[in-house]
């Protein structure tokens, strides 16, 4: 009986401690769709850290790339009556019902690199069209606008799809550059294996017959860099260009062994900080959204990083 009382008391104390943790002034829900992607993890962690600097509680959730899990987590946070929601790489059409429910419940929602929704305040995003054009033209420049290239795409994400479509426009205007192999990443949960399998086959099939590789995001480029190195290629043999940015990519641009040539650095940390700042201004200080962001997007500038400026980005 004494044991039972001890256990009951311990559960009670634990419960009270958890309940006390819930009673904060501003309770921010943060959900990342797939935190195994470095960019999403950076984004969600920065949002959490910035919120805590303001004295808010920030609950960070990871949907593990599952649509249904993401929907359930949003539903649960709405039921929790969080003060605000910041979502990293969410999907406005699929979660239209959840976004609408949040709006009805008076919960402001800011998304990051997700796309626009009539039920959210706005989406903090880089201009995908500009970044995609920069990366595509840079790659073609490194091969003197002629020769063969391999392409690694990702159609399921709006931003990555736009990047691929802009690449196609650039290629159409430069017919001396030919795509000899293209792979589209399909599996979001096991995406690393998918990229490795698809690109290793293309690299083998086209060995010695391509001068450049374009990847729709840096996570893919890192895997491709490993494959190229496993194939015995050295820096300068092939140009490898992608988009996103991050310390590992910068390190490889600097590394004489790596084939990583350039990336377009998206300031995910700045975007996350911006989302928290805007949330404070709108939800806490009462500034009208239209006074801060006139349309559905808050654009942030991105920078092309190659060997000429990589030192500025390396920490």
């Amino acid at each position, binding site marked *: 009986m004494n044991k039972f009382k001890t256990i009951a008391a311990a559960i009670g104390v634990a419960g009270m401690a958890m*309940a006390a943790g819930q009673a904060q002034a501003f309770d921010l829900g943060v959900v990342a769709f797939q935190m195994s992607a470095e960019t999403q993890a950076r984004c969600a962690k920065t949002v959490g850290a910035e919120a805590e600097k303001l004295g808010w509680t920030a609950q960070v959730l*990871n949907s593990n790339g599952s649509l249904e899990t993401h929907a*359930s987590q949003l539903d*649960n946070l709405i039921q929790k009556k969080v003060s605000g929601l910041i979502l990293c790489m969410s999907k406005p059409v699929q979660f239209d019902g959840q976004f609408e429910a949040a709006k009805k419940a008076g919960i402001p929602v800011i998304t990051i690199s997700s796309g626009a929704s009539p039920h959210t305040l706005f989406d903090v995003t880089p201009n995908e069209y500009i970044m995609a054009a920069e990366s595509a033209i840079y790659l073609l420049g490194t091969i003197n606008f002629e020769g063969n290239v391999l392409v690694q795409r990702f159609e399921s994400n709006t931003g990555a799809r736009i990047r691929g479509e802009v690449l196609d426009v650039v290629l159409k205007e430069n017919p001396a550059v030919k795509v000899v192999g293209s792979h589209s990443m399909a599996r979001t949960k096991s995406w690393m294996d998918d990229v490795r399998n698809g690109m290793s086959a293309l690299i083998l099939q086209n060995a010695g017959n391509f001068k450049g590789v374009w990847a729709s995001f840096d996570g893919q480029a890192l895997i491709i860099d490993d494959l190229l190195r496993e194939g015995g290629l050295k820096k300068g043999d092939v140009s490898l260009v992608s988009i996103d940015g991050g310390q590992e990519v910068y390190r490889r641009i600097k590394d004489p062994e790596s084939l990583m040539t350039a990336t377009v650095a998206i300031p995910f940390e700045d975007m996350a900080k911006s989302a928290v700042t805007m949330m404070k201004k709108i939800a806490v200080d009462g500034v009208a959204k239209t006074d801060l962001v006139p349309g559905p997007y808050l654009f942030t500038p991105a920078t092309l990083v190659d060997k000429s400026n990589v030192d500025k980005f390396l920490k």
Partner: protein
Amino acid sequence: MRLKSFIEIYGTFLAGIALFVFLLIFARNFASTANLLNVLKQVSFLSILAIGFTFALIAAELDLSFANVCSLSAVVIGSLISRDIAWPLAVAAGLAMGTGAGLLNGFLVTVLKVPSLISTLGTSSVANGVAFMITGGVAFVGRWDKDFLFIGRGKLGPVPVLVIITLVLIAIAFVLSTQTRTGVHMQATGENEEAANRSGINTRNCKILGLALSGLAAGLTAVFLVANLSSAAPQMAGDFLLNGIAATLLGMTMFTPAKPNVLGTFVGALIIVILSNGLVLLGAQYYIQDIMLGIIIVVSVAVSASVLKRAAFAL
């Protein structure tokens, strides 16, 4: 009834109630009607899939294909709706896809004598491949017919339509498994196939029916998922495999210990979803949720395994 056997039959159920009471006391907003209905809606997908798996298990067969078959059915529905086919036809096609996959499993197991562990893994892989073939890896997304979306997002008063449908389906499954001659024959087949055969039960048909019902449940869940998310993607039900098995194993630790049973599976699914919802309301970070789910799975497998072992020794 002795205390020991009472705990053996109702122990997990009581633990579930204890969890419920704990969250009622300590998790802010857990007890609200909106949240409890939200929990019931979330449990719909998992419980229907897990009950399908339970039917296969009642007939002593494992169906490891249900999650991928569900994803394939979803893709079939999404593909047809996005081609402007009337949604009732698309739903019928999705249900036919699920049931057809279940019947195929039944054929492989009973006619070709391939063990269900192997045959359903094979079906699972084929379903996954076909889903990717149909979609090319890109999800079908759209703002589809409101009448169709009403199945997944609609409400009758405050109650989600999905909750009503799920409760009706669970009641039908419960009656079928316990109150009908077919259900009794399936149980007899699962408990001792040879004895069931000798007593004139068509065990082959029972196994085919168990696997077909699992497929049908996958098809039904696909309809609900697509209607809820207004999209269909390959692997969209992937996360349900582990949770569905966990719910069924949890269910086997209560009411009729060591035997798969519909009511136990529903309560098992409810415990998993309540835990997930409660952790969000308590402010737990994402990694805590994964850890807790892992512990639940290990404990449920350990408990059901020990109950199974005892049952085996008692024979």
